Structures are given as structure tokens and as C-alpha cells.
């Protein structure tokens, strides 16, 4: 660590205003401040502002740490589903994990290369520092899409979301919509055959020639996909080897689905980290859970076969699909959600409610969480505005009452 610091300090002049590599100064700044506390913050005893070690780079790092359980589990699950699809009966732990790692690695590399490339370019062009928001976005994107999404689609979607959801609004901290979800929505509407249906959620290829071979034309729908197309009176959700998927399987996450969002257990570990470090707002998480479970109970009371998802147990509604992941990691995004505390309650509640309504009553979109969060992202500023106005009106009213007393 010391020697790294020395190396950076020695390289600093070359990136200075007159240095040889001045053109790359923002990249240098980015790496330097990512690794060490920025050197040009005011020293504590001289300034009037209180400095905290939690700058946004440190925040992002903690979110990454919170995502790691989901990421690791996603790797294992990808391998597990692949082994199942290949008809194997023994599941060697490290091979499964290694298979999942090899499957997801190209996607992660592509997302970071494209996203950070654009961010570096824009920062350089605007003579700004590189901002760190993409660290999290770049990891979220691979986790919320099917593992076998073609790399060029990932690249196009990442470029689209970084440019149109983020940079045109002014970069990190100014975006209206969650960039990771915009990337997913872009993929979903642009290439529907790659983002839904029954052929994309289980990895069937052999990355770098590793893993057992799977027969051509193998298909297996996600539980929500199966439910959306179910026509019988009783819901039956089956896994790849045609055994029924229990609620426990869903909670642990050994089911087909998008890469990182299948396991509720790992999402809960991530949630615990985020809540313990106070990065995520407990208000949003709680109210979104209340909203989704409440709505699920309500529609479960009027269950019918026209909308098969209404027959689903309300708790399963919460654990299936991307809803839990969206509530913990997407809805709590401090930039795109509400700022006021009352607003956070409303925001979270509506995210949960709308997600369940979309996934239940529109069989074309078995995954409603993405659309719900994006929709509420658009409304977040309005909610905040109303909360603030209401507060001002209440206080003005009080002032008027006090004034009339005096006269």
C-alpha cells in the first residue's frame, strides 16, 4: 500500500497542468482518489466544515461489498442450473462456481469497459473529475440480465444508459432514472426475445470450453414466466429436472432467473450490510415490502385463473423474480429516489404496489419490478415537491393563525 502511494505521488507531476500526460489527468485523479483519501480536501483543524471518511467512493465500495453475496451466489447458481440442464447428478462445488465465474466474467468486463470508457471520455472532455457512480451500475447491469445475453447487446445497452440516462443529465448524482434499470429496460424493449421467454435464463454454452455440454434447443422458463403462461387451476412451478420448486428453493435461490437476483437469502445479507452502514433507506425498504405484500394479499383474495399470478402466495410474490433485488438495490438508490422522509414512504409503497400490479395483470411483463422502479423514479421529484409544499403550507397556516391572534 505504501509503495503504491509512493508510485502515485511520483507520477503526479506528469499528470499536472504542464505534465506530459495532462490529457489523462482525470483518469489519474480517479484512480488516486479511489485508492486513497483525496489530498486536496481541507485539513480538519483549519476548515469550518466537518469532514467524514464516507465520501461517495467509499459509499460505492460498500454497495459493491453488499452485492458480493448475490454475485457469488449467482455464479454458483448459474453453474448449478447448467449442470442440471446437462442432466448431471453430481454437483462439484468449485466447478459450478468456476463455470458461473467464466460465464459472467465477459459480461462484467464489457459493461465496465464500455461504461467507464464513456465516463472517462466525458470527464476528460468536460475537464471534470471522473465520478464513481458507474462502479455500482457496472456491476448491477450484469446481475439483472439473463446470463446468456449476447455481449454486443450488453455493450449497446450500457452505452445507451450511460449516455442517455446519465451523462446528458449531468453525470453521477444528476440522473433521473436508475442507469442499471434503464440498461435493462433498453434490452427488454429492444431485444425481447433475448430478455424474456424460456430459452435465455439458463446458460447452455460452454464458456472457454468449460463445463458439460447441454443438448441444443434446451428451454426452461423462470418461475414467473411459467406462472404467467399457466392456464390450470393450480399453480405448478417446476425446475429444470421437473421437480416442483418449493418456497424454500425460491428463498435460497436455486432457480432459473436473471444472474444475480434469484437468491433472497443473499439479497437479505446485502440488505443487512446496506442498512447497518445506513447507506440504504430503511423507510423505502420497509414501505416497499409493505406495499408489495399488501397488494399481493389483496389480489390473492380475488384470485382467478384469468390472471394466474393472482393465485400466488403473497410471500412468494416478494421472493420470486427481481422484486426483492429491486427493492434493496434499485429503489434505495439515493439519487433517483425521494429525498424527504415522507416522500420515501410514499415512493417505496408505490414501487411495491405497482410492481405487483404490473406482474400480475400484464402477462406480457412477468417482471414488473423494473418498470415500477423506473416509473416511480420519474415521479420522485414530484412527490418531494408535494411533501415540501405541504410542509410550507402547514407552517404558513400556523403563522397566519399566530398573526391573527396578535391583532
Amino acid at each position, binding site marked *: 500500500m505504501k509503495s503504491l502511494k509512493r508510485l502515485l505521488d511520483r507520477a503526479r507531476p506528469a499528470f499536472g497542468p504542464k505534465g506530459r500526460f495532462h490529457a489523462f489527468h482525470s483518469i489519474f485523479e480517479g484512480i488516486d482518489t479511489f485508492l486513497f483519501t483525496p489530498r486536496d480536501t481541507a485539513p480538519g483543524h483549519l476548515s469550518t466544515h466537518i469532514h467524514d471518511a464516507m465520501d461517495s467512493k467509499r459509499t460505492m465500495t460498500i454497495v459493491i461489498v453488499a452485492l458480493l453475496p448475490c454475485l457469488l451466489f449467482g455464479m454458483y447458481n448459474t453453474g448449478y442450473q447448467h449442470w442440471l440442464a446437462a442432466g448431471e447428478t453430481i454437483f462439484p462445488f468449485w466447478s459450478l462456481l468456476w463455470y458461473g465465474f467464466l460465464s459472467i466474467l465477459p459480461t462484467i468486463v464489457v459493461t465496465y469497459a464500455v461504461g467507464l470508457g464513456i465516463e472517462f471520455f466525458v470527464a476528460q472532455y468536460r475537464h471534470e473529475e471522473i465520478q464513481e457512480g458507474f462502479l455500482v451500475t457496472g456491476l448491477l447491469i450484469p446481475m439483472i440480465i439473463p446470463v446468456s445475453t*449476447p455481449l454486443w447487446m450488453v455493450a*449497446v445497452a450500457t452505452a445507451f444508459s450511460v449516455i*442517455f440516462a446519465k451523462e446528458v443529465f449531468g453525470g453521477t448524482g444528476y440522473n433521473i432514472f436508475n442507469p442499471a434499470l434503464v440498461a435493462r429496460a*433498453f434490452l427488454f*424493449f*429492444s*431485444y*425481447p*426475445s433475448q430478455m424474456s421467454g424460456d430459452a435465455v435464463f439458463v446458460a447452455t454454452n460452454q464458456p472457454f470450453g468449460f463445463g458439460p455440454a447441454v443438448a441444443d434447443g434446451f428451454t426452461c422458463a423462470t418461475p414467473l414466466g411459467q406462472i404467467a403462461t399457466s392456464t390450470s387451476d393450480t399453480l405448478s412451478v417446476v425446475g429444470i429436472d421437473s421437480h416442483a420448486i418449493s418456497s424454500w428453493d425460491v428463498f435460497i435461490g436455486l432457480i432459473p432467473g436473471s444472474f444475480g437476483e434469484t437468491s433472497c437469502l443473499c439479497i437479505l445479507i446485502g440488505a443487512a450490510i446496506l442498512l447497518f452502514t445506513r447507506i440504504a433507506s430503511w423507510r423505502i425498504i420497509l414501505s416497499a415490502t409493505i406495499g408489495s405484500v399488501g397488494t399481493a394479499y389483496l389480489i390473492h383474495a380475488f384470485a382467478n385463473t384469468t390472471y394466474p399470478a393472482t393465485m400466488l402466495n403473497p410471500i412468494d410474490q416478494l421472493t420470486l423474480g427481481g422484486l426483492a433485488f429491486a427493492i434493496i438495490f434499485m429503489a434505495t438508490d439515493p439519487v433517483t429516489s425521494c429525498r424527504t422522509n415522507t416522500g420515501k414512504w410514499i415512493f417505496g409503497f408505490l414501487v411495491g404496489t405497482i410492481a405487483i400490479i404490473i406482474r400480475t395483470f400484464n402477462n406480457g411483463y412477468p417482471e414488473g419490478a423494473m418498470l415500477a422502479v423506473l416509473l416511480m423514479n420519474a415521479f420522485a421529484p414530484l412527490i418531494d415537491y408535494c411533501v415540501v409544499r405541504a410542509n410550507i403550507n402547514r407552517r404558513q397556516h400556523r403563522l397566519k393563525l399566530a398573526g391573527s391572534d396578535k391583532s
Partner: protein
Amino acid sequence: MADKLTKRQIFFNPFSKNNPVIVQILGICSVLAVTAKLEPAIVMGASVIMVLAFSNVIISLIRATIPTNIRIIVQLVVVAALVVIVDQFLKAYAYDVSRQLSVFIGLIITNCILMGRLEAFAMSNAPWPSFLDGVGNGCGYALILVGVGSIRELLGSGTLMGHQAIPQWAYEHGYANNGLMILPPMALIVVACIIWVHRYKHKDLQEK
């Protein structure tokens, strides 16, 4: 108008410097609606050029006799008559395209560009400059329509004017058409990108 424009300026300004779509932001609705494919975009552009040029001329000819307080109604009647002619013409000679354009030919009546040009130009200028102004503005509108239409059809359907433009080997290597390009939101984003590039080239148009 403070400084008198030459005829050349009247005709060419709407192409870029004073483009009705990307500078005045008029007629956006029809740009979103008819540009999913190139062919309807071209037909729509041509229709607007026709209607705009002739309504400008007619209004300019009778501008001295129109009572001020009913001028909007008179303008609407002229535009509506021309739109009906164009609509009937398309139904007779290009039925398939007129089916694709459906109500949007009729809705040329409500296109802001027309009312804007009639009010701002034809009401106070002689017929010949009015004709140039109409054709120029129509062309400026058609230019954007064709640009957006070709981008959307190329990326969204892989074709241009109905002919396959993306080679087959690209599909065999995993390329897929972008379904979002067919949907209206992408038309807005494409128009926004054109505005972006245009403002970048013409710094004087950038808002402070």
C-alpha cells in the same frame, strides 16, 4: 421582421438555421408518429411541402381582404381544403401508404408549422416569397422526417424503403433488430440526438 431577408435566405434558412422541427420544435407529434418506416416519412414530408406551399400562396394572395378577427378560420379553411385534396390524391394513387399514414395526413391541419408560417409569413408577404417560404419550411420538415425515418427503419427493421439493408450474414452472426427503434420513445431520442449535433455545430443556437 427587423431585417429584410433575401429570397435565398427565405428559402434556405428553414433547412438548418431556422429549421421548424429542430430549432422551433414544431410538428414533433407527426415526427414521432410517421417515422417508424422511411416510405411514409417521405410521403408525409412531400404532403406537408405541398400543403404548406400552396396555403402560403393562397393566404398571401387574399391577405388584404381577410378580416383580422376571423383570419384563423379562413386560414384553417384553406389548409383543410388542401389537406383533403392531398388525402384524396394519396388514396387514389398510393393507397398502401395512405393506409399506413392513416389519420396523420388529416392531422396536417393541426400541424403547428402550417399555422406558424401562415401567421408569421404569408399574412405579411407577397405570394412569391410566401411560396419560397412554404417550400423551404416544408423541405426543412421533410429533411428531419427522412433522417429520423431512415435511422429508425434501418436499426429497427433492418430495411430501407422495404428492402433489406442490413446484410444477412450480420443476422447469422447474432445481430438482431432493435425493437425499441420502432416504438415512439426512440423517435424522440433520435430527434434529440439530431438537435444535439445541430446545436453543437451552431453555437449561436445554444441556450445560455
